[in-house]
Every structure is written in structure tokens, then in C-alpha cells.
């Protein structure tokens, strides 16, 4: 290699700089459109779930613009692909905020995605609306959790099975990552408090995208054949569910023998399989497509029209984005500014209609109030709501069933202004 390559190195480095700085070109003035970042995986393993959320955001923004935008300014979506690569997510978040200068970001699905971008939002003081049910144990000033926390999904579901179906024996099956681990820890404690014996609880973890469920399903079958009514509480991650349910169906476990209540299986996942064998299995969400309200009908109509596919379904995280987006709009209008601090100040207490006929309120801990619905799978891939909480459940950032987090509270209003306020020591547990 001659020295020419040496020069060439410089050339590339320069090019690298140039290419990257090239993006800095666009910066928004106040009269320009308001930029909204959409930070979802459009490729890689998570694309399955997240692509839909990107689309729903585009729809919501389009609708808002038809209504005349916000503060008389149009909204401009900025879509990036984080390719299911979490360091990349952090990089993209930074880019959205610093380069594209977006005023709010809607995005992430997995906890690891949220965890990896969180410091960025903290540092650059921007806004993230996170639309997926998660393990809780977190409350951050710049993040709004519009999905369910465990007490808005898992616990009511277990209550239903215990009281309405009379389940006495429990299988807690999940994918081995933080959400199931934490949720199962909480449930285990909850069940024991409810007087369930140690050996009436079976906990099982499987890797991501697990496809061969034969052994586990037959274990469940064995566990369930003791005579006591048994149920499976599934925190199995979206993608692994199809083969799981298929195996259930094939091994002839139907919902009457051993009902499975899932927290990560929605219409979107069911669209991927023939639900006939699954009729009667359950899911706990805060929204079902089948819920019969005018808001929902309207939303679904708009969605199918927007996506141009009559068969496309809606699901819970989509509603979460719907709520989150409307809350942000409300707050911005209220604050008459898109400035993050102003929004954070004004958004607490904002109340917007949800799609299930009620309203959602942004709480001081940056979680929201939700109804909890239990649905049974129907053979048309929809859920039939068999039970719902009488009134709205407030999202709890810190579970009361984990010893360490029991004393913690989150409150982003004066005077506390803290994500992990320790009610015992009455101090803000430092850190975040």
C-alpha cells in the first residue's frame, strides 16, 4: 500500500465528519413546524411490534395537523429506525433531540431501549412518551409511562382468576428478561400473601424467541393435572407466543382445563395465528379492539383507513400512544409552549379520553390511570371482555410487593419533586 492510502484515510475521516455534520443543516425556528420524534425499531427482532406504533404516531400527527396542529403550528414527524439495537437507540435519541431538535419523542418498546435512552433524555432535558406495559420500578422526570405498570395489569388479572375462576395452582411462565422477572417476583409475593402454598406455584423462564415449547408445555400439563384448578400467568415475550400457543393447542390443553392469562399477547400477536384452539384463553390489558365505544369505533375506522387494510388490528400500546400524544398536545396548549420544562409542569393532572369510554389522567408519578380489562380470546382473533375493574386504577411506579421498593413513592410536583422519594426516611433517594 502506498502513501496514497494514508491520504485516503484522512479523506474518509473528513467525509465522516462532513456526512455527519451535514445533518445539522436543518434546525427549526419557532414559526416553523413543531417536530415530533418517533423512535421505534423498523427492522430487527422488535420490528414485529414496533412498526405499528410508528404508523399510529404518523396517523395521530396527521389527524392533529388536520385539526390545525398545535399552537397554530403544524407538527412534523421525524422517524428514525433504531433497528432493535439499543446503543443505536441512545445515539438516535441524542440525534433527534440535538440535531433534529424535536420537542417530544414517542418511542421504545423494550425496557432495555427505555433504559438506554433514559440518560439522554435526562441530560438533554427532553420528553419521552413510553407506550408499553412494563415492570415499573422507575419514574423519571423526562419520561411519561403511558403503558401499564404491574398493578394495572398483572395483579387485577390474578385477582380475576382467583375470585372469578377459582384458580388454586399457578404457573408463572415468562421470557427471561426484566419485565417477567419483576412481574413474577411481585405476583409470587402477592399470591403467597393470598395464602397460596409454595408448591402450588411453578415459575419457568425461557430464552427470547423460544420456539420449542414441547417440554415446558408438557410440564405445565403435568403440573396442572393435580386436580386443583390451575392457570398459567404468561409474561412470555410477544414473538415466542405463537409457537407457545400452538403447542398448547396441539397438546390439547384448552382454556377450560388450564386457562392462560397473558400480559404481552394482544390482537397484533393473535393476528399471527389461528386462534380457534385458543378460545377462552385470557389476556389482561387496558384496551381491547373489541371494546364497544364510539371513540374506539372512530379510532379503528381511522386506523384501517390510514393503513389501507381492513384486516389490520389495533392494540393496547397503540391506545397508549393515542393517550400519550393527546396528553402532550393538551399540555402544550396549556403551557402555550413546547418547552419541555413547561410541558412537564403542565402535563400532570391533564385528563384526556381513553378509547375504552373512560378518561386517563396523568399522575404526579408520570404514570396514568387506566381501567383494567380481562378478555377471553375469541376464534376471530378478538378478545371478549369478561371482566373489568369497576373504576380506574392508578399506575404505581414502585411496587408495594417488593421489599426494597415498598417505601418508595414518585411525585414530580412540588414540594417532593422526586422519582424515588423514600416515605420512611422522607428523603429523595438521591440519584435519578
Amino acid at each position, binding site marked *: 500500500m502506498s502513501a496514497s492510502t494514508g491520504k485516503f484515510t484522512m479523506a474518509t475521516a473528513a467525509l465522516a465528519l462532513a456526512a455527519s455534520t451535514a445533518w445539522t443543516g436543518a434546525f427549526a425556528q419557532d414559526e416553523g413546524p413543531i417536530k415530533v420524534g418517533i423512535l421505534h425499531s423498523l*427492522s430487527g427482532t422488535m*420490528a*414485529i*411490534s*414496533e*412498526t405499528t406504533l410508528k404508523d399510529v404516531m404518523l396517523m395521530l400527527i396527521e389527524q392533529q395537523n388536520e385539526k390545525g396542529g398545535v399552537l397554530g403550528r403544524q407538527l412534523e414527524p421525524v422517524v428514525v429506525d433504531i433497528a432493535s439495537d439499543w446503543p443505536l437507540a441512545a445515539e438516535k435519541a441524542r440525534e433527534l433531540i440535538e440535531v433534529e431538535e424535536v420537542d417530544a419523542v414517542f418511542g421504545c418498546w423494550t425496557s432495555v431501549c427505555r433504559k438506554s435512552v433514559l440518560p439522554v433524555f435526562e441530560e438533554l432535558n427532553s420528553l419521552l412518551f413510553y407506550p408499553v406495559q412494563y415492570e415499573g420500578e422507575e419514574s423519571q422526570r423526562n419520561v411519561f409511562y403511558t403503558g401499564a405498570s404491574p398493578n394495572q395489569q398483572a395483579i387485577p388479572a390474578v385477582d380475576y382468576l382467583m375470585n*372469578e*375462576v*377459582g384458580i388454586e395452582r399457578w404457573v408463572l411462565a415468562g421470557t*427471561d428478561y426484566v419485565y417477567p422477572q419483576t412481574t413474577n417476583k411481585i405476583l409470587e409475593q402477592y399470591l403467597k400473601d393470598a395464602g397460596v402454598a409454595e408448591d402450588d406455584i411453578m415459575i419457568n*423462564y*425461557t*430464552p427470547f424467541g*423460544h*420456539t*420449542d415449547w*414441547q*417440554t*415446558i408445555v*408438557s410440564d405445565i*400439563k403435568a403440573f396442572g*393435572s*393435580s*386436580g386443583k384448578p390451575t392457570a398459567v400467568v404468561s409474561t412470555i415475550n410477544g*414473538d415466542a407466543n*405463537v*409457537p407457545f400457543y*400452538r*403447542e398448547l*393447542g*396441539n*397438546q*390439547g390443553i*384448552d*382454556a*377450560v382445563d388450564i*386457562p392462560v392469562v397473558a400480559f404481552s399477547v394482544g390482537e*397484533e*400477536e393473535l*393476528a*399471527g*395465528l*389461528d386462534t380457534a*384452539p385458543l*378460545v*377462552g384463553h385470557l389476556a389482561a390489558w387496558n384496551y381491547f*379492539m*373489541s371494546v364497544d365505544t364510539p371513540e374506539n*369505533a372512530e379510532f379503528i*375506522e381511522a386506523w*384501517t383507513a390510514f393503513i389501507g387494510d381492513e384486516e*389490520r388490528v389495533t392494540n393496547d400500546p397503540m391506545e397508549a400512544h393515542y393517550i400519550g400524544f393527546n396528553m402532550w398536545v393538551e399540555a402544550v396548549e396549556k403551557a402555550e409552549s413546547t418547552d419541555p420544562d413547561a410541558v412537564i409542569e403542565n402535563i400532570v393532572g391533564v385528563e384526556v379520553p381513553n378509547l375504552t369510554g373512560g378518561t386517563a389522567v396523568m399522575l404526579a408519578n408520570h404514570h396514568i390511570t387506566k381501567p383494567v380489562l380481562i378478555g*377471553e380470546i*375469541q*376464534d*376471530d382473533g*378478538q378478545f*371478549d371482555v*369478561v*371482566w373489568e375493574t369497576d373504576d380506574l386504577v392508578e399506575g404505581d411506579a414502585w411496587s408495594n410487593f417488593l421489599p426494597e421498593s415498598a417505601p418508595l413513592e414518585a411525585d414530580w410536583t412540588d414540594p417532593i419533586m422526586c422519582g424515588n422519594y423514600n416515605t420512611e426516611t422522607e428523603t429523595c433517594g438521591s440519584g435519578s
Partner: protein
Amino acid sequence: MAASLDPGHRLRPLPNCPSGTSLMIRTFAARWLACLALGLLFSLNGAYAQEAPIDPAGPVADLVRQLPDGSYRDRGAVIGELAATGDSALVPLLRTLEAGELFLLTETGAIVTIEPEGDEVVATDVLTGEAIGTFGEDAVEEIRVNNLIRREVRAAVSQLTLMSDSPSVRIAAAREMFNGANADSIPMLDEALAQEDNETVRAVMEEVRAVAVLRSDAGPDETAAAVDTIIERGGRQALGILQASLGSASADVAPAIEAGIARIERNLALWGVGQNIWYGLSLGSVLLLAAIGLAITFGVMGVINMAHGEMVMLGAYTTYVVQEIIRNAAPGLFDYSLAFALPLAFLVTALVGIAIERGVIRFLYGRPLETLLATWGLSLIIQQAVRTIFGASNREVGNPSWMSGAFEVGGLAITNNRLWIIVFSLVVFAVLVFVMKKTALGLHMRAVTQNRRMASSMGIRTPWVDAMTFGLGSGVAGLAGVALSQISNVSPNLGQGYIIDSFMVVVFGGVGNLWGTLVGAFTLGVFNKLLEPHTGAVLAKVLVLVAIILFIQKRPRGLFALKGRAVEA
């Protein structure tokens, strides 16, 4: 609209409710499985008409009218009472209830079934069996069922059909009772037994009765006898029942029970091993399917084909498309969908494969590494293409009826789809071996891969052979895709999940050796499944990988290495 055939249908417009034929087939499938669940009870459906209608004034009718009211628990109790009446006329009604086709006529409080008529519905009183006029859709309201109700209904139905005319029904009924039987069911069982002439049915009923006796406060001798019967029956249910009874058992039967438990457990443990091996074989067959195409493109041609997984994925998507067309065009043919899918999938992927070979790989022969890079690039492109065309989310590929369900062989539970996949994988393998060993194409392939120059000088059209070989490998991958679509997700990522395992299998078995791939696949599968119960799924997989690494140290060229001076240097 046809929709009211749909058991789960709510009388409210469902925006995405699949309309027309496509719904028919879904409903059909649903019915079919419902049959399974109800244990062939539908054979009795014909009897519905002849049943004497329930006296609308009688106590039974009053109970029926309570069905819509109260919590699921209360209503469950009501069903219990209905069962207690022993009025077999209730059976069809209960089944309609379970199917979610029982409605409440809100104004009169009558319990009705409905037939749609335009926007309106014709209601038929289930008690009298008479049509009572036409109403708006919102005049009636479905009587909700959940699993608790379903369970109660089944228990009730089983009690009420214990003396049905059809032995199969009686057996089903008795089986259904096995878990739930208790002291109260003894008289009923005795009655049934008294008039039972069919031996097999008797046997089952005796077992049920034994359970009932065990749970009653019968004398020690009777209990002991019961225990023996249950032990004889064996199986997990029996085990559970005995364990449960152990607590309340009197001192003189307790030992017998314990002995029985031990015996059943020993039995189950034995079958357990067999079961795990079966699972292993089934996992192995999946690995084999995934890897076998690679054994050609990679093993025989030496092309490190990173797009192999995508070929599998394309095969799966072909299946999806075929099924969609059938669903809409000819629902009746659904059970044959795979028969159409297989050749198509082979064709599609083979063509794609040939295109890739002609377009890219042929320029890279002798540079295996470049093929790795290029095919990796191609895999990205194919994935994204599929994502753009079909969307990122999973697509529904249904099991044809003959691939659903399971059957028992002794203590082994064998699921049909797994069985078929094992058979299928072996067939594919056999055909492939035949092609490689016995056909001209196979001969040419081996010739070309062993000495390109010589082969061409002997008049073999090497480019054509290359294309065909790669096409064959890809086509086989497509076939695998059809099979895998039956057990796992059909999404753009489908291929990624299998590519690594495939390479492991091929290398473990010995590159360039089809038999190695076969043995490798099943060895890894069984090994993995034997570990899983002890270590859990994740660790099992890790250990398998470590095992492969260590094994390669021992045999640097895999299980079936090519020997001799040739491979040296």
C-alpha cells in the same frame, strides 16, 4: 350475515370482523375443534329436535331463567343445580350456552336462540322450542360465558349424558367426571353402572366411581378396593387424586395409597424419559429441516450461504400466500393447503436461489468468504423486501385439521404436527440422498464440487450444475419453511432464528456429508431435550453449544469427517 354461526360473535359490528367465506372457514375450524373438546358430543345434535321440551312452568325452567343473572360464580352454581335435576333435555341447551349462542330477550326475560334475518333476528324460545317473533339486534343480549361457566357446563353435561344411548358419549361423560367425582356422584354412577352393558364403558365408570368412593367416607375395605382401581388406571390424574386423598386417608389405607403413588410415579418417570427422547427427535427433525438445505449449498458447494435462513422464510411466506388464496377462493380445500404450498415453495425458493447463484455467487467460486459477505447482504435485502411487502408483523398460517391435536401411545403424548414434521423431514432427507447418489444431476454435482476443471473438460456444463445445485439447496430450504410455518412465527425474522443452529448442525455433522447432517441434527436435538428438564431451556442450549465447541476439538472435521490424505494440508 353468516357471522352468527360464529360462537364468539357479539351482536355489534366488529370493524375487522373477517367477512364472508373467510369467516365461514374460521368458524368451521372452530366448530371442528369444539367437537374435539366436547368429546364427540355433537353426534347427539340430531337428537335436539326429538327431546321433550322442558315444562316452561316447572322448576327446571325457573333455574334456566336464572342463567343470565349474577356473577359467573352464581351462574355456575345455577348450572350445578340444573345438572342435579338430571333432566337430560337440558343437554342441548347447555351446549348452546357453552357455544355462547344462548341469548336473553331483554323485554320478556325469555331465554332464546336466534337466527339472523336481515338486520333483525328471529328468536326461538329454548324452553318451548317455538319461534317467538322477530326483534332488532339490540333486543337480545348474549348470555356471557367464561371458563368457569364452560367448566360447569361440561360437568353438568357429563352427568346428564351418563346414561345416553351412545356408548362413546357415555365414555366421554364418564371421563369428564373423573376429576370432579365425589360422594354425591356415587348414586348416579351406581344407577348408570346398573344398566351399563358395554364393558369398556363399565371399566371407565368403575374408575370414576372409585374416585368418588375414595373421596366419600366409605369403609376401609371399599376404599382400599377403590385405591387399587385407581392405581390400576395410573396416569397423572390418578396420581394427583391419590396425593390429594393422602391427607384425609385413614391409617389402614394410607400405606396402600403411598405404594400406589410410588408405583405410578415410577411409571411416569419411565415414560418421561421416552417423552423427552420423542421431543428430542422432534426438535432434531426441525433442525434437520432447517439445516439440510444448507448441507447442500454450504456442505456440498462450499458456499457460506448466510441467506439460507431467508430461503426458509420465503418458503413459509409462500405457505401463507397459498393459504390466504385458499381461504378466500376455496375454503373447502384448506386441509390440502400444504399440498399446494410444498411444490410452490420449492419452486419459488429454488428460483430465487438460482437467481442469486447466477447473479452473485457464480462470480465468487473459490472465495467462500466473499460468499459469506454477499449472501449476508442479500439476506438483509430479502428480509427488508418481505417486510416492505407483507409488513413486519407475524402472518397467520393455520394448521390443517390433520396436523392439529395429539394422541397417546402408552404414556407418550404425540402431537400430530410434530409427528408429521418428523416424517416429512425424513422423507425430504431420503429424496435428497437419492437425488445426490442416484441421479445424473447428483453425479454431476459431486463431480463438479470435487474437480471443477476435470468435470467441465468431461463435458459437464458446470455453470448449469452450479445453478441447479444451489437451486436445489434453496428449494429444500423452502420446503423446510413450509414445515416450520406450522410450528413457529411467520415473520421476516423467521430465518434469523434458524441460521446459526443450521450451521452448527452441518459443521457438527461434518461438512459435505448429508448423513452427518442427519445424525448431527437428531443428536443435538435429543441431547438438548434430555438436558432441558434438568437445566432449563436456556442453559440447555448453552451447554449444547459448549458441547459442540468441545466436540470439534476432538474431531476437527465433525462427526462424519472425510478421511485420508486428501483432506490434509
